[in-house]
C-alpha cells in the first residue's frame, strides 16, 4: 500500500474531528461563551495573565507540548503492525487527547487560570494534593530516566549527531545574551544558530574524525573495558553521566540563559522536521512494507500495552500541565480554547502519524521489518533508531543525502529529548523543594540539594535496569512506566473535567468514557507487568526495581480510582467556582 494514504486518511479524519466533534464539544458540552471574561482579561498583569492572539497561543502551546515522546511511542508500537498504532493515534487524538487538552484549558479558565494540581485539591479534596504531587514526581523521574537513555542511545547509534547537538549549547547561550542583554530580535540569531548546527551536521556526516563514537573508542561492542563492562555498556554509562552533569547545570541556570534560547532553535527544528518529512512523503510516496497486524507479535499482547506505549500522540497528561499552567492564563476569548487546545492535540497527532509512516516504510521487505521488530524488547530498543533511518529515507525525497538527513533527524530528536530532559529535571527540583516545604525538611528546599537529589535518582534509575547490552542499556524497560504515569495524569485531568461537567448538570460522557478507558488500560497493563513480568511469578526473572516502581504506580492508580468513585458519588454543589 502507498503510505501517502495513511497520511491522507489521517489528516482527513483529523480535519473531520476538528470540524465536527470539537465543535459539538465546544457548543454542547463545554458550552463556550464568547462573552466570558477570561482570566487573561480579569487578572491581566502583563506577565502571566496576558490576552494573546489565538494563532500565537496555538503556536506556543504546540511547540511546548510537541517533543520526542510522540515520536518514540509510535516507533515502538508499530511492533504490533501499522494498523493498531495508526488507529490509536487517530482515534486517541480525536476522542481523548483533543477533548483532554481542550477541556483542561476550559476547566482552568473557569477556575481563575489555576493549574490542574490546585483544581484537584479543590474538587477531590486535600489528600489529592499530595497524591497529585507524587504522580508528577514519578512522571518526571520516568521522563528523566527514559530521555537520558533515549539520547545516549541515539548518540551511540548516530555518532555524527553528537557534535551538532553540543554546538547548540554555546549557540543558545550566545542567543540568550544577544536577546536578553542587547535586546536583539530573536528570529535572525536563532535561524543563524540553526544554520550553523545543520552545517556542522553536514560536515560531521562526511568527516568520520568529527563523529564522536565512544563504542569505537572503547575498541568495539565486544571489547570488555572496565569492571566487566563492554564497549556499549561503558558508552551508555559515560553518556548518561555527561547528560546528568549537563542537566544539573542547565536546570540551575536562569531559563533565559540556555533553556529559552534552545526552545527558539527547537521551534524552528519542529517546523523544519515536519516540512521535510511530509514533503519527502509526498514526493517519494514509499510503500508500506510493515504488516497491517503482526501475527508473530506473541511475546507481548497489544491489548492493553499499545495504549501505554503510545501516550503522547494519542493522549498525554503532560499536556494538561501546559494547558492549565500557562495557556489558560493567556486565552483572549473562551471560544479560542477549541482552536488552541484541540488543534494543538491534532498538531501532535500529525507528528505521531509521521513517526508511524517513517517506521513502516523504512524496510525494503516485510521480512526485514519482522527481523528488526522480532520481539517487543527489540522494538523498544531499536524503535527510535528505525524512526531516524525511516525519516532520513523520507528526506531523500527532497534531495537531501541520506547520511546527512540521518544526522539531522537524529539532531532534531535529541534536541527535543534534551529540552524535555532539562525541563523535567528543573520541574523535579521544584517538586522536591515543595515536598521539603510541605513536610518541613528545610534542607530539601535548597536548590543544590534538590537538584542533586533529582539528578542522582534519575541517573540511578536509568543505570540500574539490566538490558541486553548490560549496564545502562536497559533504560528502555522504563518506557511502559513512563506511558503509565503519563496516562495516569491524563486520567486525573479527565476525571476533574467529568466531575465539573456532572456538577453543572451536563453530559459528561465525552470525557468520562475516555477516562474509564485510560484507567482500565493502565490498571490492566500495570497488573500484567507487575504481577507477571517483574515479580518473578511469571516466566521471567524477578526485576525488583521495576516491580517496586510499578507497584507504587499501581497503588496510585487504584487510589485515584477510589477517590474518583467517591468524588462522583458525592453530589456537592459546584465547589469549583461561583462564576461558572
Amino acid at each position, binding site marked *: 500500500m502507498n503510505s501517502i494514504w495513511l497520511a491522507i486518511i489521517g489528516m482527513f479524519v483529523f480535519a473531520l474531528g476538528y470540524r465536527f466533534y470539537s465543535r459539538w464539544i465546544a457548543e454542547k458540552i463545554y458550552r463556550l461563551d464568547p462573552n466570558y471574561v477570561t482570566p487573561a482579561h480579569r487578572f491581566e498583569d502583563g*506577565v502571566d495573565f496576558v490576552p494573546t492572539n489565538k*494563532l*500565537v497561543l496555538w503556536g506556543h502551546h504546540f511547540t511546548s507540548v510537541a517533543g520526542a515522546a510522540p515520536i518514540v511511542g509510535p516507533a515502538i508500537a508499530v511492533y504490533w503492525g501499522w494498523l493498531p498504532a495508526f488507529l490509536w493515534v487517530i482515534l486517541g487524538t480525536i476522542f481523548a487527547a483533543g477533548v483532554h487538552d481542550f477541556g483542561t484549558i476550559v476547566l482552568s479558565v473557569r477556575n481563575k487560570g489555576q493549574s490542574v494540581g490546585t483544581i484537584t485539591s479543590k474538587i477531590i479534596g486535600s489528600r489529592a494534593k499530595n497524591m497529585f504531587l507524587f504522580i508528577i514526581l514519578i512522571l518526571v523521574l520516568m521522563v528523566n530516566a527514559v530521555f537520558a537513555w533515549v539520547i545516549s542511545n541515539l548518540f551511540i547509534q548516530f555518532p555524527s549527531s553528537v557534535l551538532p547537538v553540543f554546538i547548540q549549547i554555546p549557540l543558545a547561550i550566545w542567543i540568550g545574551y544577544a536577546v*536578553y542583554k542587547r535586546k536583539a530580535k*530573536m528570529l535572525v540569531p536563532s535561524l543563524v544558530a540553526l544554520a550553523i548546527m545543520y552545517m556542522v551536521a553536514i560536515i560531521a556526516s562526511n568527516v568520520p574524525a568529527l563523529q564522536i563514537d565512544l563504542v569505537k573508542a572503547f575498541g568495539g561492542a565486544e571489547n570488555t573495558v572496565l569492571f566487566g563492562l563492554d564497549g556499549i555498556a561503558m558508552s551508555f554509562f559515560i553518556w548518561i553521566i555527561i547528560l546528568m552533569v549537563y542537566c544539573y547545570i542547565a536546570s540551575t541556570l536562569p*531559563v*533565559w540563559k540556555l533553556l*529559552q534560547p534552545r*526552545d*527558539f532553535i527547537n521551534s524552528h527544528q519542529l517546523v523544519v522536521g515536519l516540512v521535510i518529512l511530509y514533503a519527502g512523503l509526498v514526493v517519494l510516496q514509499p510503500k508500506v512494507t510493515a504488516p497491517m497486524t503482526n501475527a508473530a507479535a506473541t511475546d507481548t499482547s497489544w491489548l492493553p500495552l499499545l495504549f501505554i506505549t503510545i501516550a503522547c500522540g494519542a493522549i498525554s497528561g503532560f499536556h494538561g500541565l501546559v494547558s492549565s499552567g500557562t495557556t489558560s492564563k493567556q486565552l483572549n476569548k473562551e471560544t479560542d480554547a477549541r482552536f488552541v487546545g484541540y488543534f494543538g492535540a491534532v498538531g501532535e497527532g500529525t507528528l505521531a502519524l509521521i513517526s508511524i509512516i517513517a517506521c513502516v516504510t523504512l524496510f525494503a521487505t516485510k521480512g526485514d521489518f519482522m527481523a528488526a521488530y522480532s520481539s517487543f524488547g527489540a522494538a523498544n530498543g531499536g524503535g527510535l533508531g528505525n524512526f531516524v533511518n525511516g525519516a532520513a529515507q523520507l528526506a531523500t525525497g527532497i534531495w537531501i543525502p541520506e547520511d546527512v538527513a540521518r544526522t539531522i533527524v537524529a539532531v532534531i530528536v535529541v534536541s527535543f529529548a534534551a529540552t524535555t530532559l532539562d525541563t523535567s529535571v528543573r520541574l523535579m527540583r521544584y517538586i522536591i523543594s515543595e515536598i521539603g516545604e510541605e513536610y518541613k525538611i528545610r534542607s530539601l528546599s535548597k536548590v543544590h540539594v534538590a537538584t542533586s537529589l533529582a539528578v542522582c535518582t534519575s541517573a540511578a534509575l536509568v543505570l540500574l535496569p539490566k538490558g541486553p547490552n548490560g549496564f545502562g542499556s536497559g533504560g528502555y524497560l522504563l518506557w511502559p512506566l513512563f506511558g503509565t504515569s503519563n496516562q495516569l495524569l491524563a486520567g486525573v485531568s479527565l476525571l476533574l473535567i467529568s466531575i465539573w461537567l456532572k456538577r453543572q448538570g451536563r453530559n459528561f460522557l465525552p470525557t468520562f468514557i475516555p477516562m474509564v478507558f485510560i484507567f482500565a488500560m493502565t490498571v490492566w497493563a500495570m497488573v500484567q507487568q507487575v504481577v507477571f513480568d517483574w515479580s518473578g511469578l511469571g516466566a521471567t526473572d524477578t526485576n525488583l526495581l521495576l516491580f517496586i516502581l510499578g507497584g507504587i504506580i499501581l497503588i496510585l492508580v487504584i487510589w485515584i480510582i477510589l477517590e474518583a468513585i467517591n468524588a462522583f458519588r458525592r453530589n456537592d454543589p459546584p465547589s469549583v467556582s461561583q462564576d461558572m
Partner: protein
Amino acid sequence: MNFFEQLKKAVALYEEILEQPHRTELARELRDEEDLFMLICFSEMVGIPNPAFYYTLELYPFLVERYHQWHLRMGLKTSPLDGIRCC
C-alpha cells in the same frame, strides 16, 4: 494582499510565537526588579521595616566624616540627629 505582504505577515506571526515565552520571562524579571525597588524605597512609609536598613549600617564609617562636615557647614555645632554621633 500580494504574496510578499502575506509572507511578511506570516514571518511576523512566527516571530511573535517565538517571542511569547521570552516576553513573559522578561516581564517577570522587570516586575521583580520593580517590586524590590518599591520595597526598598517606600516600605518604612507603610510601617514595614526596611530589609536594606541593616546593610546600610555598614556605610556608617564612610558617611560619618562627611556628615560631620555637612552639619558644621550648616552652622550646627553638634549632630542634629541622635542616631549619628559624630562629635
